[in-house]
């Protein structure tokens, strides 16, 4: 009985996953001024088997300041500029540049999302979002990494700029340490190390430089796809005793170099 139930659950999950369609962006990372090609595989979606598909795109999902793409047209009558190019059975592509598609400046564009639809809006795919634009303008923040893009074999330095902290505990945190977790291609934890003492570069800046395989023992042949880092430490309570505190967990995706 258990086996049958498991099979049903797995089957339903597989159908659901397949029904989402598949999106590939080329290049994988891009700024709002780069030309990007979206490739959408509509297999398993309500658009499967159709020849004419239109993109409905929107910017800055969930972060404010969003706009519909200038090419969208009306929901019940997509503009011809939104028509995706058929590249094969169930496969469609669309080329765009963020600033031109949304009529927004690079500093305004944070991410974008889209869906595929029929011209009259009778059928559609789910939303695919959010896809981040690489910043063209440097924005100081309490947490940052150097370099901005790296793979799992590179030296990476994580920083905590304490004078930019917005949380009271983080502003007062001392005895600063770093927690690192590395993930493989399946999204499983490949290794983690907690409480690595951070380097105090100045009164307001803490850092930690590392190469993953120097921090944790990785299984042979494992390919890392991302890591998370978290700054943690202590603050004094009202009685002067040390109390543990920590910042948010920050996720960094590894870049695939070629």
């Amino acid at each position, binding site marked *: 009985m258990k086996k049958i139930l498991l099979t049903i659950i797995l089957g339903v999950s597989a159908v659901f996953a397949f029904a989402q369609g598949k999106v590939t962006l080329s290049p*994988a*990372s891009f700024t709002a001024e780069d030309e990007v090609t979206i490739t959408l595989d509509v297999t398993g979606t309500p658009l499967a088997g159709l020849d004419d598909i239109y993109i409905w795109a929107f910017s800055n999902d969930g972060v404010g300041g969003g706009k519909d793409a200038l090419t969208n047209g009306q929901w019940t009558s997509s503009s011809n500029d939104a028509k995706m190019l058929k590249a094969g059975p169930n496969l469609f592509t669309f080329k765009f540049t963020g600033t031109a598609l949304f009529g927004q400046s690079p500093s305004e564009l944070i991410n974008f999302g889209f869906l595929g639809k029929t011209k009259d809006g009778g059928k559609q795919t789910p939303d695919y979002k959010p896809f981040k634009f690489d910043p063209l303008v440097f924005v100081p923040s309490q947490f940052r990494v*150097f*370099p*901005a*893009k790296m793979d799992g074999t590179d*030296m990476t330095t994580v920083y905590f700029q304490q004078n930019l902290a917005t949380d009271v505990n983080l502003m007062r945190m001392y005895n600063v340490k770093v927690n690192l977790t590395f993930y493989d291609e399946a999204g499983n934890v490949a290794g983690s190390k907690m409480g690595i003492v951070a380097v105090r570069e100045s009164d307001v800046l803490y850092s930690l430089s590392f190469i993953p395989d*120097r921090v944790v023992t990785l299984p042979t042949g494992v390919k890392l796809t991302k890591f998370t880092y978290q700054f943690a430490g202590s603050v004094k309570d009202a009685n002067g005793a040390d109390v543990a505190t920590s910042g948010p967990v920050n996720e960094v995706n590894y*870049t695939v170099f*070629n």
Partner: protein
Amino acid sequence: MKNIKYLLMATCALSIWSCKPEKFEPITTDVNVVKQMQGTWTLSSVIQVDEDAKTKGFPYKQLDVTNVYPYKDLVLSFQGDAQGNPSTFSITSGNAPRITELTSGNWSVDNGQAPTNIILKNGTTQSLLTFSSYTGLKSGKLNIKKVKMSNGKVILSYQYEFTKK
């Protein structure tokens, strides 16, 4: 009067005949880069450069990571044949992080006179290093670079400075 005329003509002829392009000596002596590369080198500095940040003019462009791990343990050896042509190489990392996936094999350059790329090969595996500059070679410094690219765009590089043993 006639003699003076002939004398003047002869002087002019001699002056014209004596004109020839002046041969300038080279400003510096020839640098045989390939030959000067040969020998044993120890890694003395590693600078990580965020090329993307550099392009965008962001404030954090490079970081000296030499002392994060014992990079200075790394020894690189370029050997040449009897004619001074590139032959074999070896990289002994010690406790230093690896700078390429290869530890030994054959090396070559893309241009014998003015090389830009150093090609390391072992079987079918190949690794590419590029010259940062030749200027240090005479004083026993080898400056090379490893570049990482994504979709044809240079994203990250490591600048390695070696000192001749």
